[in-house]
């Protein structure tokens, strides 16, 4: 066994053993443990757990790669996936914590005094969360298959078993403490290579500053200026200004990710685990610190990875890499099919340009940038092993949070809340565990048979949450008069419009060939891409809700009293059942 493989096994199985140990120590004994970790998590702990819950395989593996190739256009992810926390801290989390229930649909059911509202919320939640979880399962499979060199399906099964053990055993309590450990693993795995690379390229160990520094080669040229020059010489868009589908599209995309973040139930749920309203506000701040640590490093990782890649292929203008002398990482990634070279002009050298006819790097998968980065920069093997453990931590922690959100909406909202209201606590706990198991099997099945659109799924999940759940919650807190009928109409039309738009451009249920308008720019509504459409869906949701409110009259007085009570921070007991 070679050194890299040995280190990888140690890192991956060492962290797994840690997660199992934590799960055993923090196993759940009551429904309160299972849904809200007993309500005794401190804001700082909760901040780390939210960080891990939130930062998925998409953040860890894909985002820097996207930024590397989109440049400035990649800013939509950076702003979109952090700005939502401002909305959470000010518009939702404190009031929902004050109200003190276990799940998001339960809040909606109380506020909108309606079982129908609860069921609609459960459906919206499941659609958004399942869309999201497929991406995570795929991330788990890919990370395993690449680093442990096992089959993709086997890798996925190992991941399912690991999540099952600690999520089913510990519920929210087990998940919270494992997420804290996973956050620590993930953040080290992300920042250590970045520090090394920043030091190599610019002499500055802090990546956020290194990105704005001059190169360490003595030329005195700023890294970003050099990168701009290199990519434009080859015909690519300038790195620091290259746009993503126009300003309006970037605007809508960023907004959609922001309000989607604030509307994702698995994140909101985490705010129910702290003891007070003040702690809920504070958690949002700590969460964003934990997230910002990774998110402010990501642009440096992206730019430096792109720089290193370009530099390897063409060290100086006109002196291209000779294919037979390509470095080991190049060969390794060629084996996976994610990197492909085709010697079109037969000169034995690698030409990488923006022109499809002369470009010989026919495939450079964006997802490999973070994973290949340490090898491209010649970092030691233990760093590469650490990145493997970090990628898995990112995917597993998010998958666990999503699975809990899905299973609690079934066991607590549908079964206990609507269909079997007299279920005992013990049975509800059992039901929670059974639905979680089913959810894991279902997610695993989808991970093995991804519906052919897995790449774009995570961004779509945000659009769906943005257009359905966020507006309903916000109106419930800020408009005392908002009625059940109006909110239901809003949710259905918001998510309906968004799904319709996505389907008409991406195919019905994403089946290729069924898209009746075609997935092409000219047919987009004002040039807004399907991934960015959640913000339009949210506007529709607000609009329809207020129109229906006008036509059908306000919520009854006792509901308005509930809202009044939500707005006062004192007297928030532990999250409870009824």
């Amino acid at each position, binding site marked *: 066994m070679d050194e890299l493989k040995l280190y990888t096994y140690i890192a991956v199985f060492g962290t797994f053993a840690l997660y199992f140990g934590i799960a055993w120590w923090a196993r759940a004994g009551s429904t309160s443990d299972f849904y809200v970790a007993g309500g005794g998590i401190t804001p700082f702990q909760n901040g780390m757990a939210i960080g891990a819950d939130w930062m998925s395989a998409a953040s860890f593996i894909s985002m820097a790669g996207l*930024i590397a190739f989109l440049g*400035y256009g*990649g*800013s939509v992810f*950076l*702003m979109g996936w*952090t*700005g939502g*926390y*401002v909305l959470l*801290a*000010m*518009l939702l989390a*404190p009031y929902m914590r004050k109200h003190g229930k276990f799940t998001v649909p339960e809040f909606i059911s109380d506020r909108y005094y309606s079982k129908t509202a609860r069921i609609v919320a459960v459906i919206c939640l499941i659609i958004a969360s399942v869309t999201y979880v497929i991406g995570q399962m795929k991330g788990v499979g890919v990370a395993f298959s690449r680093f442990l060199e096992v089959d993709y399906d086997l890798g996925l099964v190992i991941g399912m078993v690991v999540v099952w053990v600690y999520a089913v055993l510990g519920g929210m309590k087990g998940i919270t403490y494992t997420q804290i450990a996973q956050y620590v693993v993930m953040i080290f795995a992300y920042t250590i290579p970045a520090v090394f690379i920043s030091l190599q390229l610019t002499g500055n160990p802090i990546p*956020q*500053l290194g*990105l*704005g*520094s*001059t190169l360490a080669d003595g030329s005195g040229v*700023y*890294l*970003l*200026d050099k990168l701009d020059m290199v990519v434009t010489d080859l015909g690519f868009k300038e790195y*620091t*200004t290259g746009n993503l589908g126009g*300003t309006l599209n*970037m*605007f809508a995309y*960023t*907004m959609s990710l922001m309000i989607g973040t604030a509307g994702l139930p698995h994140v909101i749920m985490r705010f129910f685990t702290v003891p007070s*309203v*003040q702690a809920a*506000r*504070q958690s*949002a*701040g700590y969460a*964003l*610190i934990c997230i*910002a640590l990774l*998110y*402010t490093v990501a*642009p440096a990782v992206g730019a430096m990875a792109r720089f290193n890649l370009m530099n390897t292929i063409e060290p100086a203008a006109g002196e291209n890499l000779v294919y037979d002398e390509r470095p080991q990482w190049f060969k390794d990634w060629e084996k996976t099919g994610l990197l492909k070279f085709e010697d079109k002009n037969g000169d034995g050298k690698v030409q990488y340009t923006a022109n499809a006819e002369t470009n010989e790097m026919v495939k450079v998968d964006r997802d490999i940038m973070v994973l290949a980065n340490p090898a491209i920069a010649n970092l030691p093997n233990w760093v590469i092993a650490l990145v493997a453990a970090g990628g898995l931590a990112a995917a597993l922690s998010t998958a666990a949070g999503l699975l809990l959100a899905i299973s609690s909406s079934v066991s607590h909202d549908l079964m206990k809340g609507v269909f079997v209201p007299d279920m005992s606590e013990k049975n509800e706990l059992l039901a929670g565990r059974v639905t979680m198991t089913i959810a894991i099997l279902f997610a695993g099945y989808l991970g093995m048979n991804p519906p052919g659109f897995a790449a774009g799924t995570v961004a779509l999940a945000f659009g769906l949450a943005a257009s359905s759940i966020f507006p309903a919650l916000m109106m419930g807190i800020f408009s005392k008069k908002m009625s059940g009928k109006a909110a239901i109409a809003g949710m259905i039309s918001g998510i309906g419009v968004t799904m319709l738009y996505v389907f008409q451009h991406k195919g019905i249920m994403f089946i290729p060939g069924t898209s009746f308008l075609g997935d092409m720019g000219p047919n987009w509504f004002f040039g807004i891409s399907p991934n960015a459409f959640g913000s339009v869906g949210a506007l529709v949701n607000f609009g329809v809700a207020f129109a229906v409110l006008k036509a059908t009259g306000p919520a009854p007085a006792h509901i308005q009293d509930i809202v*009044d009570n939500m*707005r*006062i*921070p*004192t*007297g928030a007991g532990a999250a409870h059942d009824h």
Partner: protein
Amino acid sequence: MENKEAYWQENLRLIFICLAIWFAVSFGLGLLLVEPLNAIRLGGYKLGFWFAQQGSIYSFLGLIFWYGAKMNKLDQKYHSEG
């Protein structure tokens, strides 16, 4: 009763200020005004690019903690008796 209303109004005012800044640093400086701002440099960063990829995130952090601190004071002012 009056107290409750005053507390909520002050809260709304704070939220409004925070969200105005939230919008300005991200959608404003990072997106709509990015081109003119890019003429200004911050070391190797073009300023608009910096706001989009770094500055907006730092601002969000500042906003959440500032809002939290302000609200804690407000909570004490209106609800210190519990």
